[in-house]
């Protein structure tokens, strides 16, 4: 079995890269031919944001095995930071203009936003991760609420922002410079980095801690270090998602980042399968596209989600994919009848 494994490893990234490029080409063609309207590209943007949020939350919840109910707090930090940075840069006329300047302004802003979210993730994680299970869920919820209340009452985070800010108002007038091509590639890069992370020795350490933190500690893993690392990593990508969101929506109200929003991302992770990044991608995509398709039933959306969530937890607690990953290579080889079905990617069924 060793030989096909090696072959598969060499082929896998190439197949996935081709898949990603093909998907991008389809996207470009659809936008150019006008099939994808501004409305639909908005939905695609929301899907990308959800995918980044769900996959990043999955690192803390699925791979580390700790439910975090304050993920939107980090998203808020990223969103507000990056929005204020692009505002400040626009005010002092740095990198303004369509095309490349806007792109770099956006990129710099969201990366700094992500970095600040990561710093807060670390600051929250160091004390919070001494706890686990229910208590960790509650303390992350508490931190999320505190972040929300503080941002709401900061003067430079409301109104027109910075020196013309007003506390307690929505932050308005953010340049809407996320565009779907850029966001697509950012999503790809984010998911790729997260995939590398969970496949590295760090990711394996997280899974060991998830299965049994005491015995992982006994075998020499620095449990606290890995927990905080995972939390920081997860917060970084939540910050990036927040940055994209801010520059897509154009104005930020703190009500976009409530406890209930955090719960929505938890729902995506549970649906997709805790411990499956591709599961989170699929669930994030479906659950954020579905409400648009079912606009007429908008008021029943959360009702249906909550029932579905209970049903999933009772009858299929592993979610859609469990801890397995969807693999393009496997699908292709099965499709072309090479019969390598027994090679499952990351298939540690519990």
């Amino acid at each position, binding site marked *: 079995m060793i030989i096909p494994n090696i072959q598969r490893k060499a082929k896998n990234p190439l197949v996935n890269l081709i898949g990603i490029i093909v998907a991008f080409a389809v996207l470009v063609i659809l936008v150019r031919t006008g099939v994808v309207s501004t409305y639909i590209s908005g939905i695609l943007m929301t899907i990308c944001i959800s995918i980044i949020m769900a996959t990043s939350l999955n690192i803390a919840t699925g791979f580390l*095995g700790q*439910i975090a*109910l304050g993920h939107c707090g980090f998203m808020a930090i990223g969103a507000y930071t990056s929005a204020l940075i692009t505002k400040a840069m626009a005010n002092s006329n740095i990198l303004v203009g369509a095309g490349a300047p806007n792109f770099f302004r956006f990129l710099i802003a969201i990366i700094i936003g992500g970095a600040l979210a990561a710093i807060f993730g670390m600051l929250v994680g160091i*004390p*919070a991760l*001494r*706890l686990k*299970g*229910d*208590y960790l*869920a*509650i*303390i992350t*919820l*508490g*931190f999320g*609420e*505190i972040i929300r*209340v*503080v941002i*709401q*009452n900061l003067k430079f985070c409301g109104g027109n922002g910075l020196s013309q800010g007003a506390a*307690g108002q929505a932050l308005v007038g953010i340049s809407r410079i996320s565009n779907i091509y850029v966001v697509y590639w950012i999503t790809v890069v984010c998911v790729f980095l997260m995939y590398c992370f969970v496949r590295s020795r760090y990711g394996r350490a997280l899974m060991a801690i998830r299965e049994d933190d*005491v015995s992982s500690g006994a075998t020499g893993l620095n449990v606290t270090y890995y927990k905080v690392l995972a939390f920081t990593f997860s917060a970084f990508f939540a910050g990036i998602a927040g940055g994209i969101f801010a520059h897509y929506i154009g104005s930020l109200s703190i009500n976009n980042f409530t*406890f*209930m929003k955090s*719960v929505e991302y*938890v*729902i995506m992770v*549970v649906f997709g399968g*805790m411990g499956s990044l591709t599961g989170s991608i699929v669930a994030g995509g479906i659950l954020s596209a579905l409400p648009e398709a079912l606009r007429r039933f908008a*008021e*029943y959306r*959360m*009702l249906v*989600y*909550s*029932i579905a*969530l*209970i049903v999933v*937890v*009772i009858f299929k*607690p592993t979610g859609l994919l469990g801890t397995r990953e969807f693999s393009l290579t496997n699908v292709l080889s099965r499709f072309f009848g090479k019969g390598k079905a027994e090679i499952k990617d990351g298939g540690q069924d519990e």
Partner: protein
Amino acid sequence: MAVFVQQLLNGLKIGSVYALVALGYTMVYGIIKLINFAHGDFIMVGAYTLVFTIPLMVASGMPAWTAVIFAVVACVAVGVGVEKVAYKPVREKGNRMSALITAVAMSLFLENLAQVLFGASPKTVSNIFKISNITVGGVTLNGNTIITIIIGVVVMLVLQAFVQNTKMGRAMRAVSEDREASILAGIKVNQTITLTFAIGSGLAAIASLMYCAAYPQAMPTMGSMLGLKAFVAAVLGGIGIVPGAMIGGLVIGLVESLSKAYLTTLTGGVLTSAFSDAIVFGILIVVLLIKPAGILGKDVGEKV
């Protein structure tokens, strides 16, 4: 001074509401080790029941507060229903994380069901207590506040007596102490759990009466913040401990009311009264970090 006494009483009033809700959290956590996120929403169920039943009671010549009977019935029905339908199947599979997610989902479900049924806009609750204000030594005391505090204290004392002295109360304590052993001792565990949920939900109904007497509005999301703060109270007092929830509730109520009143002056305008929620959650974080077992809790070593 008069203002300070007013704020103190306001704190005790909202604190006794928190205490009753916290009791529900703490009893359920004590017995099945589950944070019942939906518990805050039971208050919402109670409040909506009051909205619709108070006019009926008044029309039939009864005092308005008797509508609490309907609220208790509705909340107990919802509480026991939630336990039977959602929590029991998950509990039997024995995964704590799934149980927590189910509880969050249940809370979402109740809130959105209320939104679909009654709409998102608040509904007004008719006047519940008709008590005039009392003046003691130059301080005017709001009648509603006094009666709320009295109800809270009485209910807590009754509950404490029930848990300590009756056979069912002892069964509840036994199950939360050691479930397996209490099965061996002939205690009907499932029945006891149902009873715990019923009592917790009933307390939430009484809390909703007290809350609506002070803030006469019912809306779908009213329970979530209230529930979270009551949960903080339960953790502060020591989760799973009945007197702890009472102390925690009163402390959180006082902190909230005093910080709303004096935070701006105390910090010289750096923090405004809008930060009082952040302070409540700050207390939660400090407690969890310093003494996760709470004020009255005993630190128990972890079994490996």
